């Protein structure tokens, strides 16, 4: 029964996504841009994308790798073109004046955590200082993960509340 519900949900979600994509984007784009505006070259891209389905065709499934590699390359290019700016801003934000306890803690935690992921220096594993820094790096990371976990628990209760609200208010009408 669970398997049936699971497969049904996945199937419905995939179908919903497909219908939405066709209805809300592909069809109007073909109608407005290809037919009305005469941008016929878009058909070539559509056909190129459709080649991805050849992965199900025995013998010629290698052709599907071409649109896939184009997509991956395009995605990587896009990411490399835009993400450095926000990323660098994050790095710059780490350079803060050490004028308050908060800032000092922030700086120290950042340094020892980044240091933890430099695996090459031998002295770290061999010296007591290096091992102590590693222990503290693990501790502060655990605090970070703990904060995330605490928030996730909070989120799960919110989701339970949402379901209870649906059952008790929307469905049964027991609460106002």
């Amino acid at each position, binding site marked *: 029964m669970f398997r049936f519900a699971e497969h049904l949900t996945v199937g419905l*979600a995939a179908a919903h996504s497909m219908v939405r994509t066709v209805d809300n984007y592909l069809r109007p784009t073909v109608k407005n841009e290809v037919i009305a505006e005469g941008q016929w070259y878009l058909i070539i891209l559509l056909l190129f994308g459709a080649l991805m389905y050849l992965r199900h065709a025995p013998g010629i499934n290698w052709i599907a790798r071409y649109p896939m590699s184009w997509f991956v390359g395009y995605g990587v290019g896009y990411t490399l073109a835009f993400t450095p*700016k926000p990323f660098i801003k*994050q790095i710059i934000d780490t350079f803060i004046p050490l004028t308050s306890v908060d800032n000092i803690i922030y700086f120290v935690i950042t340094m020892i955590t980044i240091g933890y992921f430099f695996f090459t220096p031998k002295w770290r594993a061999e010296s007591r200082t290096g091992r102590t820094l590693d222990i503290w790096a693990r501790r502060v990371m655990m605090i970070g993960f703990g904060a995330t976990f605490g928030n996730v628990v909070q989120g799960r209760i*919110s989701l339970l509340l949402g379901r*209870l609200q649906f059952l008790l208010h929307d469905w049964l009408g027991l609460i106002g």
Partner: protein
Amino acid sequence: MDWSKFGDLDVRWIYIIMLVVIIVPLFKPLGLPMSVSPEVKAYAETIEALPAGSVVWIGADYSPGSAAENDPQLAATFKHAMKKDLKVVIVSLWDQAPDLVQSVITPIAESMGKVYGVDYVNLGYKPAAGVALRAMTRDIRDGAGNVDYKGTSLDELPLMNEVTALTKEQVDLVISINTGSPGYGDYLNYITDPLGIAFLSAPTAGMITGQMPFYRSGQIKGMLPGLAGAAQYEYWMEEPGLACIQMDAQSLGHLVILAFILLGNIGYLASRSKGGSSN
């Protein structure tokens, strides 16, 4: 008293107690005191500072799985924007979001006499995330297939004739109501940081720690963290709604969790001092 028993407590007791503690405040809200956190205050004040007629772009990127958190965030944000006579354009990078969005904003808009197409527009689901958003920086019609969520041509919607591109000149504020990817990352990387548009984020609770560094650096001007954020926002607006009611239950639920963590640890220590082991 044998404290070590708490270490072996049947988990079903925890579920039953948790359920009871959460359900009771839903029937009878307790009105527990609440304070507004700095990030929620910044979120609310950024919207409050916009003059009437300003354009707010809301990215509603979630699904029914997180609607319990994201719906109240969207409702409070939309209500505030409508109260301030702002113009709102909503787009979703998640295919299941547009219907949720409509069910949240329509009653609010109707109760305030706002007109679809003039005061607000729901562009619906647009695939390809960051690529679609970048296309909209040149021409929204290109990135949106020139239709809204129900297939109406954007040419027929007066607001979309005023807002033709997702640029700093035409959009005063971008808000992301998000629960994962695509979502706030796409706006941050492709829109708000490169174009210099002010950006607010309303994440689910599980995403708060990941976004906090961006709030700290100023890349996100304000945040509504989870359901608690939505409740604080309602409190700030002096219009307590669904989020405030649910926060009573949420707070009591947290107290129960803390109590059981404490009891579990006491049980563990007690069993250890007795020389036994505990689960």
